[in-house]
């Protein structure tokens, strides 16, 4: 089911101050896709999720789920959470400690007064799906973190909802388990044909899991796009900075060529290949991701953007070196292949492909 959010606003009042949690949010979350709300803590992503599920009441706007309006200020509609037919996985998992695994998973079915036999079958099926068969009679709180997370997922899946919401479900798992669970979650959700709304502050989680990402900041949607569009194509400094590491270099537009502007910076002229056409003379930022700064022997393939620099520091991080290279007075972070033979202090040539240079207007 599609979720449409129209002009949603929400403010909190705390100690005489007004805190804006959501400011004019407009979104459409397409049916049967994974939609991620990404942003730093306090950006309003969790508030938005809680508004969708009905645990929080917005100040104004409208929320539609499928064909139903679940909240509308103007029409005076408020469907309580228990009648929205959604499922949610909480950050704390919210496993009920006085129930065993079976009862936790069966709960949403028992609420609907389904026949006992049917409940048993569905719970069994769901537990098999999340690979927890045989755990029915275990006290839920005696399970490991990863297993509890699966119980929470099973409970959300058991009623076969059309929409499932995730509030940072992986943030309480350790790094390795988080990676595994992320992959599993991706395959679960793709197999199920279900609309998933996923809230996280972890960029890797967002990039690897989502069909669509909405980046949020101080209650506003900054940008919406596919993971690739967000990572490579964003024109906003905040978004670029938030979804990955980057070098930001200030400069002035000196000329516009066919395929993009030439920008004069402290490290020299950088040619950018982009559709954005800032006026000549304007001050802009150039963003270059570390993985696109390449070391070359002599010249670049495209004969553009060749710079000379000195290796300031070189740190081995396993899959590569992380190098800091000084071009003039500008320091660039780069990723250098682990097989490279360069040393600290070496004078090197580096090359930046114009279509990896993003121009940010000020």
């Amino acid at each position: 089911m599609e979720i449409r959010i129209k002009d949603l606003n929400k403010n909190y009042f705390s100690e005489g101050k007004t805190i804006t949690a959501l400011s004019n949010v407009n979104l459409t979350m397409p049916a049967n896709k994974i939609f991620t709300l990404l942003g730093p803590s306090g950006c309003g992503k969790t508030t938005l999720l809680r508004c969708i599920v009905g645990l929080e009441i917005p100040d104004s706007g409208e929320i539609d789920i499928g064909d139903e309006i679940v909240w509308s200020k103007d029409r005076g509609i408020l469907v309580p959470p228990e009648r929205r037919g959604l499922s949610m996985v909480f950050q704390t998992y919210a496993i009920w400690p006085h129930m065993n695994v079976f009862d936790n998973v069966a709960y949403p079915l028992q609420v609907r007064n389904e026949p006992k036999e049917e409940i048993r079958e569905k719970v069994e099926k769901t537990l098999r799906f999340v690979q927890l068969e045989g755990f029915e009679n275990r006290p839920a709180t005696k399970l490991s973190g990863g297993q509890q997370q699966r119980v929470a997922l099973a409970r959300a899946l058991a009623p076969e909802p059309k929409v499932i919401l995730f509030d940072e479900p992986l943030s309480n798992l350790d790094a390795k388990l988080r990676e595994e669970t992320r992959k599993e979650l991706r395959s679960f959700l793709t197999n199920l044909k279900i609309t998933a709304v996923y809230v996280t502050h972890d960029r890797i989680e967002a990039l690897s899991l989502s069909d669509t990402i909405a980046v949020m900041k101080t209650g506003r949607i900054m940008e919406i796009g596919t993971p690739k569009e967000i990572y490579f194509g964003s024109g906003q400094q905040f978004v670029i900075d938030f979804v990955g590491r980057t070098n930001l270099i200030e400069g002035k537009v000196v000329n516009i060529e066919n395929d993009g502007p030439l920008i004069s910076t402290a490290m020299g002229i950088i040619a950018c290949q982009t559709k954005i056409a800032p006026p000549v003379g304007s001050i802009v930022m150039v963003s270059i991701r570390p993985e696109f700064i390449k070391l070359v022997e002599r010249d670049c393939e495209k004969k553009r953007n060749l710079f000379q620099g000195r290796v300031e520091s070189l740190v081995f991080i396993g899959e590569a070196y992380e190098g800091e290279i000084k071009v003039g007075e500008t320091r660039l972070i780069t990723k250098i292949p682990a097989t490279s033979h360069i040393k600290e202090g070496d004078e090197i040539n580096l090359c930046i492909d114009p279509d990896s240079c993003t121009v940010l207007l000020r």
Partner: protein
Amino acid sequence: MIWTRKVLTPSLIVIVGFLTVCPVAMLLLGSFSEGLGAFGTFTLDKYIKSYTDPALIEIIVNTIVFIIGSALVATALALFMAYLNTRTNIPFKVLFEIISIVPMMIPHILFAVSWAILLNPSNGLINLLLKQILNLQNSPFNIYSLPGMILVEGLLDLPVSYLIIAPAMSSFDVSLEESSKVCGSSNLRTLFKITLPVLRPAILASITLVAIRSLESFAVPSALGMPGRIYLLSTHIYRIIATGFAADYGMAAAVGMSALVASITLIILYRHLTSESDKYVTISSRGYRPALIDLHGAKVPLFTIVAFLSFILIVLPVLVLLYTSFIPYSMVPSLKAFGMMSWKHWLAVLKDPISLLSLKNSLFLGIAGATLGVLLTLFVSYTIVKLRTTASGILESLSFLSFSFPGIVIGVGFMWFFVRTPLYATIGSLLIGYIATYLPYGIRPLTSAFVQIHRDLEESSRVCGGGMLYTLRRIIVPLLIPGIVSAWILMATMFVRELSVSVVLSRPGNEVLAVQILRFAEDGLLGKLSALGILMIVVSTTLVVLASAAGAKLTKLQKEG
């Protein structure tokens, strides 16, 4: 929300405020008044009279020695036990669980009296036995002395101290010790140089809490101190109002003020220490248990000490009472003694109208008082944990302060109040006095129960389709039941055995068990005392068993939905 803001919180503040502030205010007022019947004009007479009494110096010195002594005895024993349990391979660890819970069920007055039966200088059973065996002229032991009182009070407060020290000891970050050992220290040196210093806040907290409890204590000072003419503040107050021809409640109030000030100072110190200890004791989240220290040859002797302690804490008092209730007069167990056993004392108690009345009253106070108390604390804890407004802060401070109020002082304060109401000398006055004094004992388990119910647990039920009432029935109530049951048990057992508030508020017509037992002790009627004492233990144990069974049953029903 409007309901909670407009109705619930204000009415709770009124009720709790009345229960805690009223006795203190009346006590203050009373201490400046002429007499219980009429306040009269403002006067300092009572203060002058009570604080120029030359005997007061000795009473204060006695009190200080008593509270410090029992605090040290209880804490030292608790440290010893907690260390053995959490850090060594001592066998039968279940014994430690028993020691930390079961003694709370034995009424303090009975525990004290059973020691008097064993060790009083004229016909204490152990004294008689030793005199026979060793052919002594005089009794070797005298429990009616400060050391005797300190020992018994220390044993009584051992469980309280253990419950503070054991968790601190087991959450202790072992790597602190391991690094000391890596540096070449022996186990013993590590214990004294690292373990004990790091545990210092917990140790100080335990000493303070036991000091508060022994300052409040009335059972031991009355059953063991008064026969030996050793008076403490609490028994001094009791002497002023209960003995002699003219009970002087003004003087009692004036003396009570210093006990109150002392206990409030101690409780503030205690709160300071516990908030310190949260910072201090490093809790390791690595979740692996440290290697237990192998006791080798010391295992058997150390275990013998622990077994002996549990024996004298739990088994001995009951055995002594049971034995005494059947024999005609104090005598060492022998064939002759067993031959003379009879139901005489039991029949006498069961025919004694006052004993029966006190049994009935205490049972009623236990059941009704605990039920009302739990109901009240349920709302108070909800307000403290879930609403978190300014009002909940006030409620928390009030209930926290009242934790330190000595029962007999609260009793005197309420006396000044009740004398002006029709409640005077009714069972209602006791009910109010009890709930006021023991409110914090209900708030503790219930606040932790509410804390356990994380907001997510309610919300996830609502998202799953459970409405408000469904969520209340299947999630919130079942999660609260254990807290409710333990609060009820705690209050019910405290009320059945209540002594220090009752000695003031209990009048002819509203006698209660503990006061009746004290009367028997004062009159030397040990046989009747023991029979009634056993009945008292049976009553509170039955309440505990029934409440636990009801709790288990309810939980089961709720689970099945």
